[in-house]
């Protein structure tokens, strides 16, 4: 394999990985996770590794600082850092490199700060361990400086606080501060913002960019989001099944993806797709293939989000249809225990929310975490009781329904939830899981129910042989298909999709979005689509309601919201979609 990025001239690369191979020791022998990866990172440069889960992107990053989990071993190749081979370092010598010369920002800000120690203590610990400063006062002063740099305004006060008093974004700032505290030459950021809201993500990454540019730190950025990678890095490396499939300048790759896998990724990434629909100059994603003769027909595999979005627009009839869901002044107030003694407060999760969803259309409820979008969904599903307001389903107020009437309402309205690993009972087989709604509502006899289950498996494109299998044999996307099949079992009119695709890899996400669109046109379903991801909204929804702090701040058709957003908050959300600043040639 040839070197993806050739170097000429005097500048020595900061990091040069040559033919790296990493395997995981299992009872059945060594399973390769990284198979011959070459990459070169120049000082001060930013390079992003993009890939879906299991592509080996994180494993590559962890191999550099020798932080592979338990059974992981480097089985071949070399990692030259500043000219020295890190794979030959002893664990003790590696400790000196780690932190001092190579900083690391982990993925999950929620679990990477120790909850029993104050934030200040943890920053000081790093400073002491890396020998940046010694002596109580100096260390403290340095810690304050680190947190200030990380963008925490009142750093001296915050030093004594504990992680639970910090929001997710602030914790990630602290972790970035820790990672950069010793002015490392290289910072490895492993999905640093995937757990955060988009607007927070944007601010944090802006900050990280400024900081590393000022210090002159090179950044190795690991992400699953192609748009984000292209926006934040000059160099892009796309990994697939442990190998590099394409590498080069970010813009070049986005505008001219050559490898079929990269083409797939570009076609399926919602952030890029929504961007492309906005520019809307080119009708279809015809890629110029350059010298390489790859057949473009097999490439997107029905996963092109733009094609899917165009298809749904074509199917829109002009006539207004009756409303399937009408929500009026829906309010939910939670009583919460106050901070002080004896005081109790109220949390208004949903504040006089009103909107309507036409039959056979999709309305997206968009908002960041804590905006109340899921509370609204749960009230409509009658899993939470509203404090006040009304919910009309096909013109009937369902808020006061109980017992039998509620049961028959459930028949008309079904949910699909976010977590594919939590939404199926692990001890019930797929057949029983899909058949449960039929049993509860006493639909048909045994054989009829079985036939219906087989039919549903067909509808969601799963093999019928899965009927006797258990959820843990399935991937996230397949589990989500089963959840969709269960939701469709009773032939409902309305499906409430609560972040139903948020936890999936982009390609799988695109596949499920396509399936949902197909099912909608086939069965005339009405969707209420709850999501934090505006990019996905663009390809699936007809109407959008933007929620902030329990209120709907903007409601309009998808095109209106994207083309001429009225509210500042909506504009912020739109700008925060990764890849917003990239002009695409496709």
């Amino acid at each position, binding site marked *: 394999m040839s070197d993806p990025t*050739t170097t000429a001239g005097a500048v020595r690369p900061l990091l040069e990985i040559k033919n790296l191979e990493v395997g995981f020791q299992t009872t059945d022998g060594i399973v390769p996770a990284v198979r011959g990866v070459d990459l070169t990172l120049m000082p001060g440069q930013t390079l992003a590794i993009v890939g879906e889960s299991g592509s080996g992107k994180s494993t590559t990053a962890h191999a550099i600082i020798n932080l592979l989990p338990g059974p992981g071993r480097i089985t071949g190749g070399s990692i030259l850092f500043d000219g020295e081979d890190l794979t030959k370092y002893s664990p003790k010598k590696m400790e000196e490199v780690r932190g001092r010369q190579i900083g690391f920002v982990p993925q999950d800000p929620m679990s990477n700060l120790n909850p029993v120690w104050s934030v200040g203590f943890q920053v000081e610990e790093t400073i002491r361990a890396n020998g940046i400063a010694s002596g109580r006062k100096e260390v403290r002063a340095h810690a304050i400086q680190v947190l200030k740099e990380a963008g925490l305004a009142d750093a001296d006060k915050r030093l004594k606080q504990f992680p639970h008093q910090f929001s997710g974004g602030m914790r990630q700032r602290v972790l970035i501060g820790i990672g950069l505290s010793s002015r490392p030459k290289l910072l490895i950021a492993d999905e640093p913002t995937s757990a955060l809201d988009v607007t927070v993500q944007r601010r944090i990454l802006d900050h990280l960019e400024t900081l590393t540019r000022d210090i002159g730190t090179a950044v190795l950025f690991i992400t699953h989001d192609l748009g984000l990678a292209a926006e934040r890095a000059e160099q892009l490396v796309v990994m697939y099944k442990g190998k590099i499939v394409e590498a080069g*300048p970010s813009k070049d790759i986005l505008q001219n993806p050559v490898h079929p896998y990269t083409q797939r990724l570009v076609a399926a990434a919602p952030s890029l797709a929504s961007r492309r629909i906005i520019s809307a100059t080119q009708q279809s994603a015809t890629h110029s293939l350059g010298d390489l003769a790859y057949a473009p027909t097999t490439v997107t*595999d029905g996963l092109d989000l733009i094609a899917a979005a165009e298809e749904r627009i074509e199917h829109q009839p002009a006539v207004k249809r009756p409303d399937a869901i009408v929500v009026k002044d829906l309010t939910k107030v939670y009583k919460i225990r106050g901070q002080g003694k004896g005081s109790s407060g109220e949390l208004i999760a949903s504040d006089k929310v009103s909107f309507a969803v036409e039959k056979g259309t999709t309305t997206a409820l968009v908002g960041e975490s804590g905006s109340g979008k899921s509370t609204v969904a749960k009230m409509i*599903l009658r899993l939470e009781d509203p404090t006040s307001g009304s919910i009309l389903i096909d013109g009937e107020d369902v808020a006061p329904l109980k017992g039998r009437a509620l049961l028959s309402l*459930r028949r008309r309205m079904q949910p699909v939830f976010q977590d594919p690993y939590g939404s199926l009972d*692990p001890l019930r087989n797929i057949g029983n899981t899909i058949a449960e*709604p039929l049993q509860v509502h006493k639909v048909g006899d045994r054989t009829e129910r079985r036939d219906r289950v087989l039919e549903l498996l067909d509808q969601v494109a799963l*093999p019928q042989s899965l009927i006797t299998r258990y*959820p843990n044999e399935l991937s996230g996307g397949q589990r989500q298909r089963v959840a969709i099949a*269960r939701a469709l079992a009773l032939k409902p009119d309305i499906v409430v999709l609560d972040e139903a695709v948020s936890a999936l890899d982009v390609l799988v996400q695109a596949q499920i979005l396509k399936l949902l669109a197909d099912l909608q046109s086939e069965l005339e379903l009405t969707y209420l689509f709850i999501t934090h991801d505006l990019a996905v909204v663009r390809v699936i929804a007809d109407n959008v309601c933007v929620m902030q702090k329990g209120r709907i701040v903007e409601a309009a058709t998808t095109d209106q919201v994207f083309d001429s957003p009225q509210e500042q908050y909506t504009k912020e959300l739109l700008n925060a979609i990764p890849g917003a600043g990239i002009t695409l040639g496709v």
Partner: protein
Amino acid sequence: MSSNQPAPTHYVAPLEETPLVAVDAVNVGERKSNLWIDAWRDMRRRPMFWISAVIIILVIIVALFPTLFTSVPPNDDCQLSNSNGGPSGEHLLGFTKQGCDVFSRLIHGTSTSLTVGIIVTILTTVLGILFGAFAGFYGGWLDAILSRAGDIFFSIPYILAAVVIMSVFSAYRNVFVISLAIGIFAWPATARVLRAEILRVKNADYVMAARATGVSNFRILLRHVLPNAIAPVIVVTTISLGAAIVAEATLSFLGVGLPNSTMSWGNDISAAQVDLRTAPQTLIYPSLALSITVLAFIMMGEVIRDALDPKARAQR
């Protein structure tokens, strides 16, 4: 790109080296797999499992058919001339102070220990599941009442409570009463484990999905929550079966357990303490039988615990 840095080339891997696979293709494996199937596959491969399983099965067979193992009657054939005598001929392990065959008493005492263990376990499991499941699943005031009730029982060491109960009901000492005395104070441990697990499981999305489908609360508890929460209870139960056998022996040793007329390992150990120096066999063998049996149950519990914990499994 700044001018002092070389412009990197656009590298594309040859398609032959990186073939594309269909997105999210379904691979239906040859074997079914869920928590229990996987746990069984895992256990099957462990020697610890087979060792403890063989011991437990042996103990059960001995308890059910003692005459298969010894033809010497445990009580009727005692001769004081043999008092504390050593091993001889068909009397493999020697004699007790009363001149009875140690081995035969050992064999015939097995059923007592096992019966107590099983009755106590059934009792604690049933009470533990009832209290734990309802408290954890329904929450609110029911949880408050049931959990406080459990705390009251939990605050009294069950051995102490059993000693008191057995002293009060000294006229009714038999296997059932002693089992009741142990079990009535031992269940809160099971209830607590189950309650904690149910609190975890009941917030799962599949419970929410079932609720949205219209499945009744009680049915959700029975079909979705309890099966997914029961694993740690099985571990606790297996281990506590051993503990119950020990508790019976302890009570009998203290003289508040089973009457001397009932053959049990605890009684034999109790009777042997005076002759420890002159006739160690009278103490050693019943103690050994007790230890091995209890160890087998504890080992089995550990094996099940390991097998049910996928994280522990992944690290091996």
